[in-house]
């Protein structure tokens, strides 16, 4: 049997972890087929290890098989030192070459000459395209101010070199960086509100260490394909998996228990569990005294936290940073200062009852600890009340609550399907309460995780993302909300609401530079954005994407970048602990260019001489290597031991401070005594510590807006009451179906919509998932074309009748380009509700106005076309 070829394959597989193992296939024995392919013998075969880095943030190491300069197939590199992560990758990543070589691949720079949305372009040389784009940007900056030019790069960690280059040009010119987090509705606001962080989640191999796992609106079996096995293995290890989701999902199918709760009712469910834990005194009193704000006294006169500075006889710690506040607790019959930098409250600090405190001004005020107020608020959520509000069976609530309190570690996964609601923050806060009450924070396998919107940078990037040599140069801040001109959020027309803290560009956003962002399909609200191009409000849109997307057709200039098989890049996302390189498997296709090169050339044309800030003498790959070296050297403690040389050998694990091989969120706080929050890169601690001024995990917020809207505590508020029913009271009758846009296994948001293999797997049509009873009522059969509609827009998709879909719920898998939904766009149905608590602070991508994609009511009917 002639199978020598396989030996050569093996050699390649063994060396392939180091990139660029090249061999002339002619020099080795190929399969001794009767007539060996002469061409094959002449060919060059190599395997290149790179990193797949779309906005799933999976960051999966892939190995491309390249023959004669063309990628022939892709398979997971499976070279992670923590071998449980092998193989990382999914059906989309391994078929990514369909996009690289597909019919929508960009060939070179384009200028749109047709109407917006029409596919009419003029091909330009790079020289001409860059000159013209730069002239437009200069004109817009001169006319409206530099802050009217906004750049979007989506997930920072998926490409430090390219995305940093865009941030760098924005820094040099004072343009705005617009947070992708907010655009995507992905900001898990409960995290900054409660913990003072952007997000802190378990790396997925820590799922194995949990013994009790609760998924609320999270569907990792479909949305985290490379990591899903950890949930199955956790169950094999004896963990219990509970899924709380309106619909029976793929994750529910692997769970021990599934509860179909009403959409957006999770806070009431959590409070029902909390009430049992409180009533039965199953909470960890030491933990909550030490690490949370529950002992802190709340004034009955103004609902504010009592300040030590206002209390007679109390001292404020002398060395307290400005972003902190010293509050007051009550111990041994007298008030005590809560030092926000230390967890040193006496363990007998009072958690219950009302006390009277004498103030410095001679007056007295009645106060109660946060814990006492929380207990009172939760007391209304009896099992029966919870069932009535949520459909969670009352009989199960005490048992589950006791399990939460007695089994450790408990891990709660809070999915984007759940937090992309107007009151998403309240639900996250209420669920966080469960892990805080039971001390399930800061240990291996426990905690509260969100896995959407993983924008977090793993290390300092400022040396490249900004220009440290020019400390006065800064990018402007702005909000995506300013682009959404709507009745309830009329920022664009009237400027920001008085409560809004985000800087407002006086002329609005006039130019938009988009990278990894198909906003004109994917974003809330794509039709409004399209209208802004049509009306001329947006005077210049530039996209850097390597494919011709719907957004390209609305762009004024397409300056095409390249895929992650055509350049050198640095990737590190929060889902696993590795820093990895993208390495060029092939030359940039056609006349596409690495984004670093595009930014260098553009910067020099916007402001002559600025080329010097982008390694002007090096080719783009060498320049990228310099950026990576710089980032390794300046990245801080997480980058300890990470070098370009090591990265070229394979994935390098980032440093963490806690003992053991897995990083533990909040370890430094819970086990190291550091105050909350830990740093959220790229922000410095002074920016984020203001979110939790007590230095503790906070369940009581006393900023004026929270008081005004009655959300000091993590209360339950039902959906639609402050949104749809305010906008149109008739919606209560007209639009009774909740419209949830979940993620598909066949797309990463809008990426892979056009992957022909993914299309085949979906019978080449977009689907809407309906409960069979709901469909029958409307006379809809499986496969019928359905129109989902409300006052704002419509969607056309084919019906799938799925009995696991909760009645009165319509499910659409987001991301489809509108060409695949008969020209409709699924997000024209949405409305950009902005919750005022999101305006209390403005720290881009952390605490900022955030859209809520699932807060949407619709009706549907059989389509007539």
């Amino acid at each position, binding site marked *: *049997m*002639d*199978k020598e070829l*396989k*030996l050569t*394959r*093996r050699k390649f597989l063994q060396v392939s972890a180091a990139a660029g193992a090249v061999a002339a296939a002619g020099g080795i024995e190929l*399969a*001794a*087929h*009767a007539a*060996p*392919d002469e061409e*094959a013998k002449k*060919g060059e075969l190599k395997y290149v290890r790179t990193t797949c880095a779309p906005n799933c943030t999976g960051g999966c190491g892939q190995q491309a*098989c390249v*023959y004669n300069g*063309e*990628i*022939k*197939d892709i*398979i997971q590199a499976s070279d992670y030192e923590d071998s449980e992560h092998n*193989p990382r*990758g*999914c*059906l989309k990543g*391994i*078929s990514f*070459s*369909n996009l690289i*070589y*597909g*019919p929508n691949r960009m060939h070179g720079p384009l200028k749109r000459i047709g109407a917006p949305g029409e596919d009419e372009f003029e091909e330009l040389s790079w020289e001409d395209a860059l000159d013209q784009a730069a002239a437009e940007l200069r004109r817009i900056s001169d006319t409206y101010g530099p802050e009217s030019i906004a750049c979007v790069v989506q997930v920072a960690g998926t490409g430090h070199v390219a995305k940093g280059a865009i941030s760098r040009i924005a820094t040099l010119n004072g343009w705005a960086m617009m947070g992708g987090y907010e655009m995507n509705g992905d900001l898990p606001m409960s995290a900054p509100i409660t913990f003072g962080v952007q997000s802190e989640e378990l790396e997925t191999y820590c799922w194995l260490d949990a013994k009790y796992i609760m998924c609320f609106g999270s569907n990792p*079996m*479909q949305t985290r*394909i*490379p990591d*899903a*096995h950890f949930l*199955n293995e956790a169950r094999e290890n004896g963990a219990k998996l509970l899924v709380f989701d309106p619909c*029976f*999902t*793929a994750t*529910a*199918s*692997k769970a021990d228990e*599934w509860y*179909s709760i009403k959409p957006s009712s999770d806070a009431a469910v959590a409070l029902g569990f909390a009430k049992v834990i409180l009533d039965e005194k199953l909470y960890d009193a030491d933990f909550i005294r030490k690490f949370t704000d529950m002992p802190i006294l709340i004034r009955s006169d103004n609902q504010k936290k009592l300040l030590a500075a206002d209390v007679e006889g109390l001292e404020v710690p002398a060395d307290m940073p400005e972003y902190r506040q010293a509050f007051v607790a009550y111990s041994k019959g007298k008030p005590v200062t809560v030092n926000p930098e230390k967890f040193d409250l006496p363990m007998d600090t009072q958690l219950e009852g009302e006390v009277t405190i004498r103030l410095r001004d001679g007056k007295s005020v009645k106060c109660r600890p946060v814990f006492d107020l929380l207990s009172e608020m939760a007391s209304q959520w009896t099992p029966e009340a919870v069932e009535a509000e949520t459909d969670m069976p009352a009989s199960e609530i005490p048992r589950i609550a006791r399990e939460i309190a007695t089994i450790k570690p408990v891990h709660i996964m809070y999915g984007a399907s759940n937090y992309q609601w107007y009151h998403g923050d309240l639900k996250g806060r209420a669920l966080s309460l469960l892990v805080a009450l039971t001390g399930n924070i800061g240990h291996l396998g426990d905690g509260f995780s969100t896995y959407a919107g993983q924008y977090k940078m793993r290390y300092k990037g400022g040396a490249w993302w900004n220009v440290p040599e020019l400390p006065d140069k800064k990018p402007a801040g702005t909000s995506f909300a300013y682009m959404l001109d709507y009745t309830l959020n009329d920022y664009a027309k009237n400027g920001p609401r008085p409560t809004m803290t985000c800087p407002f560009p006086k002329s609005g956003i006039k130019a938009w530079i988009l990278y990894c962002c198909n906003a004109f399909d994917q974003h809330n609200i794509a039709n409004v954005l399209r209208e802004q191009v049509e009306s001329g409000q947006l005077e210049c849109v530039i996209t850097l994407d390597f494919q011709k997307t719907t957004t390209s057709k609305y762009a004024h200039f397409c300056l095409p970048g390249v895929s992650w098989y055509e350049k050198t890049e640095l990737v590190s996302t929060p889902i696993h602990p590795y820093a990895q390189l993208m390495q060029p498997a092939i030359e940039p296709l056609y006349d596409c260019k690495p984004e670093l090169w595009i930014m260098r050339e553009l910067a020099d044309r916007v402001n002559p001489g600025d080329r010097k800030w982008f390694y002007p003498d090096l080719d783009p790959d060498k320049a990228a290597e310099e950026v990576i070296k710089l980032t390794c050297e300046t990245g801080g403690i997480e980058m300890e031991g990470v070098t370009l040389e090591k990265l070229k050998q394979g994935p390098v694990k980032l440093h963490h401070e806690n003992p053991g091989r897995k990083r533990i969120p909040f370890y430094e706080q819970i086990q190291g005594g550091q105050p909350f929050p830990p740093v959220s890169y790229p922000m410095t601690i002074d920016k984020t510590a203001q979110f939790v001024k007590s230095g503790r995990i906070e369940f009581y917020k006393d900023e004026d807006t929270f008081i005004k809207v009655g959300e000091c505590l993590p209360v339950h508020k039902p959906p639609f009451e402050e949104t749809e029913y305010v906008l149109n009271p008739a919606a209560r009758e007209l639009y009774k179906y909740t419209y949830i846009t979940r993620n598909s*296994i066949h797309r990463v948001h809008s990426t892979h919509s056009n992957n*022909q*293999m993914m*299309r*085949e*797997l979906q019978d080449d049509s977009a689907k809407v998932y309906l409960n069979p009873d709901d469909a029958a009522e409307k006379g809809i059969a*499986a496969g019928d074309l359905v129109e989902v509609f409300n006052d704002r827009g419509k969607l056309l998709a084919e019906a*799938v*009748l*799925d*009995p*696991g879909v909760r009645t009165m719920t319509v499910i659409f898998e987001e991301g489809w380009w509108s060409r695949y939904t008969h020209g409709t766009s699924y997000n024209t149905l949405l409305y950009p509700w902005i919750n005022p608590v999101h305006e209390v602070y403005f720290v881009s991508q952390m605490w900022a106005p955030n859209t809520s994609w699932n807060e949407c009511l619709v009706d549907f009917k059989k389509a007539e076309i």
Partner: protein
Amino acid sequence: MRYCMVIDLDKCIGCQTCAVICKMHHAQPQGTWWNRVFTQGSDYHQSAVGTKDGFKIEYLPVSCQMCDNAPCERVCPTGATYKNEEGMILVDYDRCIGCRTCMAACPYGVRQFNWKDPKKAKEEAGYAYGYPFDVTEKGKRLVYTQDRPAGVVEKCTFCVECMNADGTYDALPACVRACPGKARYFGDLDDPNSEVSRLVSSKQVFRLKEEYGTEPKVYYISSTKSKNVEGPWTEQSWENKTPNTIIP
């Protein structure tokens, strides 16, 4: 040596990565899938079956079952379909005349026919992907080539291109290596110490359509969660599917 595959249905997450890696690696044109993943009893992948008293979503990956008593081999008039020394059923593309008798004989519906020139079909849809080298057995039997001719039947080969002259594998079949759920095992059923033998003897396993006496060498570890819906698998789950879904 008797190679077999074991698929753990508890671990399978229905992601279809196995189907896609197989298609990409083996240069299957549009409409052709050597390996498919079904949701048992469901009309649409990953939608539930059952009633509100109990739902289930359970998958069934189906590719060539590599039968020890393979009906396709017996009916092939030209000897193009044959069983090799390692017990694998392979198709010699040089000998296949495209009569498709094997497709009628196969109870699993896994054999795929090249109606069109696959090379052209791929180039029209995108580009010429797939493992670029020919693989022959015995110096003459062409069991893999990137661009099969129009008019031949093809199917899973247990990644024969990964097998060495002595019958050992230097890289496991692509679907095994790529499975994100780590649900697939591959090895020698004749070796009592192999992982597959251990699994087959220690786990509750079943094979598809055992009643036909085909003696498949793909074993499925039963899901422990199939409490609410009858059977380890249902006919409806994959037999009603058209094997070739072609994008117009």
